[in-house]
């Protein structure tokens, strides 16, 4: 007989033994508390490392806070940075729910940006097309390109059981090279590694566009992409929570064998979820070129697609919590641009991710210190 609870096991060989006992029920408050604890721990550890390499942790953190939330202008900038993180974060969260490790949001982001640019630069629609047509067309093109890019690992996984982690990662490199070819080659403006600026009709409306109505909006760069990102997150959250399709994703994520037994076509779902995930990440690319840079260039992402993995993880794969996590990381990314050495934001992200994973052990296990017996 095996009792429902797992037997303990020892971790150390000291006289006092550390035992991990599996929790039967997780208290309500514990989830939030461990996440908060993990964030505090990670920031403290990062502060220590910053101090070791000769930085001033207090100044660094204060800088992050003021640079990200110090006034309406920077808050707007934070939301701008959070926008692609929300979309790529939702893309990752959706795939991760099904235990599909889509590490390729970065590549899908680039393909989305490329697709949107193609509408303007090829041009797929004639110059002078009004924004009301042009912008949806760009979004559609970006979504489709991202989805196609996501389809590749989906098909390979469903058909041949190829490891999606490696495939999506490799495709990131391919996507970046693909993008560079276009900005250096056919679409290059005067030999620089960027394209010409898009016509204003393709720009996503910004708050600053309303400055003529109220001067308070002047200089606020937050754009329609943020609203779209939040809407997408809400939509995906609804689909996951309330529909048959969402139930199937949840079931496959927990136990593919049980899902197969329940009559779900896992291969089909794998392909579909990968395509949608890729498409949503592609939208992030669209939002970035149409809402922020207004052209395609080599460097349009400081690694949004990778940060998205942490965002999704911090949000426990819940699209609504992704919004909050994305704003947090948007702040970190934004403020991090001026922090020296430049690797610090990436390092903080890594430490944070680790401390989040480590904190999960507290959710699953009760840690007890027991005096050894005989």
């Amino acid at each position, binding site marked *: 007989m*095996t009792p429902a609870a*797992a*037997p303990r*096991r020892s*971790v150390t060989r000291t006289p006092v033994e550390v035992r991990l006992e599996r929790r039967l029920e997780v208290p309500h408050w514990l989830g939030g508390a461990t996440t908060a604890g993990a964030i505090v721990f990670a920031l403290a550890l990062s502060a220590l*490392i910053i101090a070791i*390499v000769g930085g001033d942790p207090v100044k660094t953190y204060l800088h992050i806070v003021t640079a990200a939330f110090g006034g309406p202008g920077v808050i707007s900038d934070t939301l701008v940075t959070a926008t692609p993180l929300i979309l790529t974060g939702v893309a990752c969260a959706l795939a991760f729910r099904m235990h599909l*490790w889509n*590490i390729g949001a970065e590549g899908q982001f680039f393909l989305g940006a490329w697709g949107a640019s193609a509408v303007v630069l090829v041009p797929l629609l004639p110059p002078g097309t009004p924004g009301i047509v042009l912008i949806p067309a760009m979004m559609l093109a970006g979504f489709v390109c991202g989805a196609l890019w996501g389809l590749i690992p989906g098909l*390979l996984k469903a058909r*041949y*059981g*190829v*490891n999606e*982690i*490696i*495939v999506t*990662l*490799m*495709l990131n*490199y*391919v996507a970046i*090279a*693909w993008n*560079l*070819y276009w900005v*250096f*080659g*056919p679409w*290059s403006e005067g030999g620089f590694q960027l394209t010409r600026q898009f016509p204003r009709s393709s720009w996503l409306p910004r708050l600053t566009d309303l400055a003529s109505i109220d001067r308070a909006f002047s200089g606020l760069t937050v754009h329609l992409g943020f609203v779209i990102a939040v809407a997408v997150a809400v939509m995906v959250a609804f689909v996951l929570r309330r529909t048959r399709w969402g139930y199937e994703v949840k079931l496959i994520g927990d136990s593919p064998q049980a899902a197969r037994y329940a009559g779900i076509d896992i291969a089909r779902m794998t392909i579909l979820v990968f395509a949608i995930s890729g498409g949503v990440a592609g939208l992030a690319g669209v939002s970035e070129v149409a809402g922020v840079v207004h052209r395609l260039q080599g460097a349009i992402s400081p690694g949004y697609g*990778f940060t998205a*993995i*942490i965002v999704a*993880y911090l949000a426990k794969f819940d699209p609504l919590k992704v919004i909050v996590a994305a704003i947090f990381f948007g702040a970190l990314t934004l403020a991090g641009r001026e922090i*020296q*050495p*430049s*690797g*610090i*934001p*990436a*390092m*903080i*992200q*890594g*430490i944070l*991710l*680790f401390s989040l*994973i*480590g904190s*999960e*052990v507290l959710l*699953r296990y009760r840690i007890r210190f027991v005096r050894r017996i005989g």
Partner: protein
Amino acid sequence: MDLTTILAAGIATGTILLFAALGEIFAERSGVLNLGVEGMMLMGAVVGFGVTVSTGQPWLGLALAMAAGGLLSLLHAVMVITFQADQVVSGLSLTFLGTGLARVMGEGLSKAGAISLLPKLTVPVVADVPILGAFVRDQSILVYVGYALVPLAWYWIHRTRQGLELRAIGEYPTAADALGVDVYRLRYRYVVVGGLLAGLAGATITLAIQPGWFGDLTVNGRGWIAVGLVIFAQWDPIRAAVGAYLFGAISRLLFDLQGPSDFFGVANPIFKDHSLTFFLEMVPYILVIVVLVVGSREAARKRLGAPAALGRPFIRGERGA
């Protein structure tokens, strides 16, 4: 563009992949997937380079680079073996952490200039044999370490008691545990071996094959390629060596394609339009995907596969293969 040059360069760059892949083979054979290879290699690369820049001692740099890789892998081991965290997530985090730390530590190193490298050796007589000579003419000492490591790793896995235990804990840890094999301790050991070798792979870049610090581009995805290579190699050191050297040679060939204005009279399109080189840059990554598809199909046909317990935490007293 002669074959011997390509082969010689391929072996040199292939050695980088070889070390990383061998390390990953050991970790995965023990049942632990470590996706942090890229991060560990970056740490190895920056520590090896940085230490050599400040001390002028490449051997010390090499040792500390391995230690750095080992330390990072130890963190992964704690997370996935003791805390039973998801191996995919922990491995990814390791890459984030390694990349971030390497960037922080590499601050300013890109302007460091020339450093003293590990010695190169030529084996007399053999070096003059056509083709074969490429293996032993003017190669870094680390290349020879690679030659030695491949048969050693194979022998260790297949012909020793330690190898028997290694294979058992990766296939069915419960069985090994019941017979008194310390699954936790061995997994720790092999994960750290994987980290040491990844650190070595990183240092191989900066101290021997392609010296210098170029940020993330120093490793540029080769850690991930190594992880893919392990699947292609079916967790076998000899196949991993063949794959690594071949991959190195192909990368070199692609590089050489950019040079000439024509091939045997046919105009080289890349020479005219340099932006086409970006397509050449894609080739290695696409190649990994192709190799994975081929490898997966072959595995399905021969019913070979990953170590059965790969990616699953071992919890004493809980059943599960």
